[in-house]
């Protein structure tokens, strides 16, 4: 396993980027996600209108992997429909589990493809998927 395949420039950059780290004034869908065993703890906030994620943001703390993954997810789902967001989450999780391996099937994840190799670092898989599980949970609750 090479570190370069995990701590890629794009992940490191996103882990430092703070542009999605904020509260949203009119968030109507807020979900906390956490990995008690390692302490990663995030809250994602969404504004969902007419089936579209109008805006999204997050707060919280954790390792570079979890923070980058969260921020990249937020970038990706902003302005997407809720159904598209769900497909993105499922695709991301399937990529991590190596259920989907074709590059072409992963294209929709854009930069988040960078997490493809995280399963080579098993202890960190939980960090990478935290935001995406939280998103799925948020949508499920919103729709319930």
């Amino acid at each position, binding site marked *: 396993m090479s570190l370069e395949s995990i701590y890629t420039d794009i992940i490191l950059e996103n882990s430092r980027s703070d542009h999605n780290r904020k509260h949203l004034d009119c968030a109507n869908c807020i979900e906390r996600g956490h990995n*008690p*065993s390692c302490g990663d703890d995030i809250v994602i906030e969404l504004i969902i209108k007419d089936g579209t994620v109008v805006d999204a943001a997050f707060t919280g703390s954790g390792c570079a992997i979890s923070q980058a993954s969260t921020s990249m997810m937020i970038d990706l789902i902003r302005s997407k429909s809720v159904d598209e967001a769900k497909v993105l989450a499922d695709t991301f999780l399937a990529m991590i589990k190596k259920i989907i391996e074709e590059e072409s099937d992963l294209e929709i994840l854009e930069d988040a493809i960078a997490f493809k190799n995280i399963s080579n670092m098993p202890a960190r898989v939980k960090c990478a998927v935290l935001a995406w599980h939280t998103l799925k949970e948020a949508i499920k609750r919103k729709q319930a």
Partner: protein
Amino acid sequence: MRNFDIEKIRNDFPALSRYVHEKPLVYLDNAATTHKPQVVLDSVADYYRSFNANPHRGAHFLGVTATELYEASRETVRDFINASSSNEIIFTKNATEALNLIAYSYGMVNIEEGDEIVLCISEHHSNIVPWQNVAKSKKASLKYMYLDENHTLDLKEVYRKITDKTKLVSIAHMSNVLGTIYPVKEIVEYAHQKGAVVVIDGAQSVPHMKTDVRYIDADFLVFSGHKLMGPMGIGVLYGREELLLGMPPFLMGGDMIEYVEEETTTYAELPYKFEAGTPNVGGAIGLAAAIEYLSEIGFEALHKHEIELTTYALKRLKELPYVTIYGHKNPEQRGPVISFSMKGCHPHDVASIVDTYGVALRAGHHCAQPLMAYLKAPASSRISFYIYNTIQEIDILIDSLKKVRKWFL
């Protein structure tokens, strides 16, 4: 199924080639604990030599690998007893701890004044004392199902004792004294009709027969690794996920928590909720290796071999007019465990004397005093077989019993 080659199997067990009092060891105390094949010892030692780490906590390679090995062992156990999910497999230190866990976390919570707990009279102390404690604390009553003249359990007795008041039935699948195999599937079915949950004590049965928790429809099942060729210090609690989810934790501490604050704590998910403290990873790996060893031989071949031994032993024992055999006469109705008494010779003298001929058997109450009181036999001698025993060993046993007899004539 691999060819059942007894010589080859015996060679897998280093302890079997030893001598005792200058005689080859004839080990007939398998209901107490079994010997370990070299593969089990190696798998444990290899773990310590190559991967030893505290699981579930480490981002480092050894920690990750220890976690994977520990969870793979859990999956081996799950598959072995055909549980639906590995969340239903809790590692304990032995069957006794598993029974106590159920008694504390399920019994103490769900059993109320006036409720009834039903046991069989032949239970091992580990499946009696925890329930006495629950019954006493909760002012519930304890009822025993008694045996018929074949030393087996008539379903009529089951229907008599399990009533609408019964909240919990706990019964060994196989008696460690009589070898009797109880009709647990029928008992579970009836108990469920009455709204009771059923605990199966598989300490004796799981090593000898295919146990399918979903087929039996057991609510809980417990067993110990050391009676199944695994190391000491590892046991298993199976519980239906739905029940385990509703139970409070038992042991508390590291690894079974989610968040700990100064005053309050939230608990981890299954199965970790019930596994406090550093688990016995080496033990779990050894148990998994034992299960794999057993599975390679297969229950079918094992059963065939054990029936052969039991049939032959019953026949030879019956030739001795001063021997009284307890338990069912039909070898198909029992496991490879035979208790007996010898006229004029106390079981402890029997055990001591045959020991000098290399024969290891057990004497006493076998942790089943209520049964012994019921049988009006304060003690008995017990032989019990496993995969590696031979017909020749039974001949040595019979010869040594004849010698015992001579001392007391």
